[in-house]
């Protein structure tokens, strides 16, 4: 489903290279965990997958279902089923959460050639999804992410993922800021979406999340490259030896 080949990317503004020859393949149905120390380029990779303009790809390619997505803007990528749950979801004052959800869902429907949702149908979908994530419905009356706690923002990201039904879900440190109960709720939400035609890239700093969302593959990122890949036991190994030991060994 996703093939990243020898990807090099830099910050558009100042030319600093962050991703330095990254290779990664994720198959449909797979849950791939990306781990790595702070600053190794995990968020940057997620932004590049989503099409953020602040980064410039200088070499290599990203294939999604066999086609390069580098020329597509973020909305076109979303329309093809790519979703990023942000590490730091943005607060957007003045944009009502419900209005935003409706516009987003209908944009994707339009891209797929479907009619816009009728209001009652839309309300029902949102209500059910919010209920399953144990979200306070009052939150949805506020402007997008404004005044949400860290944990509420993460839940809101998963809510959007449930509603938009993407095919490639990139979760960037969705566990940070969540207490253990919230983590379970969010993980259950993700697990419920696992299916043979959907893939997940789960970025995390800690092994904790992977106890709840059990990955098929684990990849260790360091200085903008995948330095080691393995199965879920690699995550446990990291937990005992730390990144330093492992990265040293790979280098």
């Amino acid at each position, binding site marked *: 489903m996703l093939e990243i080949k020898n990807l090099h990317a830099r910050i558009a503004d100042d030319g600093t290279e962050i991703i330095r020859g990254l290779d990664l393949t994720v198959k449909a149905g797979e849950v791939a965990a990306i781990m790595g120390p702070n600053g190794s380029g995990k968020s940057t990779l997620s932004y590049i997958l*989503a099409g953020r303009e602040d980064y410039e790809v200088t070499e290599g390619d990203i294939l999604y279902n066999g086609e390069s997505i580098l020329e597509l*803007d973020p*909305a076109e*990528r979303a329309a093809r089923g790519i979703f990023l749950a942000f590490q730091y979801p943005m607060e*957007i*004052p*003045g944009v009502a959460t419900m209005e935003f959800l409706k516009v987003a869902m209908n*944009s994707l429907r339009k891209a797929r050639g479907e009619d816009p949702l009728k209001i009652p149908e839309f309300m029902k979908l949102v209500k059910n999804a919010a209920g399953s994530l144990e979200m306070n419905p009052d939150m949805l009356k506020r402007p997008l992410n404004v005044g949400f706690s860290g944990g509420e923002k993460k839940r809101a990201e998963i809510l*959007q993922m449930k509603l*938009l039904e993407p095919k490639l879900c990139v979760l960037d440190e969705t566990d940070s800021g969540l207490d253990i109960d919230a983590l379970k709720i969010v993980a259950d939400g993700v697990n419920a979406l696992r299916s043979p035609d959907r893939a997940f890239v789960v970025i995390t700093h800690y092994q904790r999340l992977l106890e709840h969302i059990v990955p098929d593959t684990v990849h260790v990122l360091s200085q903008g490259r995948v330095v080691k890949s393995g199965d879920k036991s690699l995550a446990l190994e990291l937990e005992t030896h730390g990144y330093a030991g492992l990265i040293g060994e790979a280098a």
Partner: protein
Amino acid sequence: MNVHATPKLTASETALVEVFSTRLSDLPGNEAVTLRRDTALEAIKRGLPTRKVEHWHYTDLRRLIGTVPAFDRTAKPEALPVLIGDSHRLTVSNGRAEKAENPDGVTIHRLKELFAKGELADQLIAGVDDSVGAINAAFVSDGFAISVADGVEVQNPIELQNLHAGGQAHSRFTITVGAGAKVTFLERQAGAGAALVSSIDKVVVGEGADVRFIILQEQSEDTTHLGKFEAEVGKNSNLSLFVMNVGGRLVRQEVHVAMPGEAAHFELRSVNLLANATHNDLTMVLDHSGYGTTSTELVRNIVTGKAQGVFQGQIRVAREAQKTDAKMACNSLVLSDEAEFSVKPELEIFADDVACGHGATVAEIDHAHLFYLMARGVPEKEARGLLVKAFLAEVIEELEDEALVTALEVRLENWFDEHG
């Protein structure tokens, strides 16, 4: 007084003088009124203001006014349905006030009839460098005098329409709101075809009255619109003025508000949507002269194309006006490289126990926000539209009246579809 050397008149100034000589016999008024018109014309003959005149520094009227069209006697503006449900409509069409009924507790006269009797002649006195006042005084043909009796709560909004179909249209609305009365006015400035329009509101808000006034200016792209809103706000009363500019080629809307009465409150909210080569100038002069008077001013602008926007906000606090509280803010969102918005805030404070402040920002669309929305599948133009709407949401939603909010949102959406 400014001493002007006798200048060589520009083509537009000459045109104004010529239109005057052909129009005068049709313009209503007894001798006293005609005298005022002549005086106003003399002011015009001394030359329209240029950027050397302080109040016109950002709007060089002499250069910008462009071609002055002739008055078109045959022009027939299209009738306009009211914007809010059961509003009481008062229409001035091609400079003629249509016959109107009096709603309960409200007395309405056509200005043409009052001018003929010499009433209101003193309202046709223009100030120094007051070109809007002078052009209107010289040419005003009709309008309405509206008086709301003491204690009356006028149920439905009164919609004031000033409509043209090209040519010239000069009208006035003279309004007196009695003590303790409550009323909403919605003024609509609209028309088709190239035109020179002037429109003046003179509003006296009685003690403890509550007045809401909305001006919706949506002139055609080749219209010069010169507007002035003058108000005196009485003791313990409340005036909220909302100005939306979404049209016109050259627009100058002045707001002059005096608050001599204790504990009066004034609010100005303004939304300016500027595209193409529009030049739009909102100029406010606010006098806090009574004790404990309060005001807030919030101006939000979206500018694109080669549009030029101006907000001049002058707040004067008299020595007697202790405990004045005045807050002014002007925020602009600039969507193109060539568009500009100039802000000139001015606080002149002679009292020592006051809380006054102002702030201005100019920003572009936040790229991180745009990315977030697009990453959810919202196409770029639509995502920008959401952010533009978000920028104005606070000001528009404050209006609360659902029909009005919807009507303004529709205008925003149409404007953005075309220019965003």
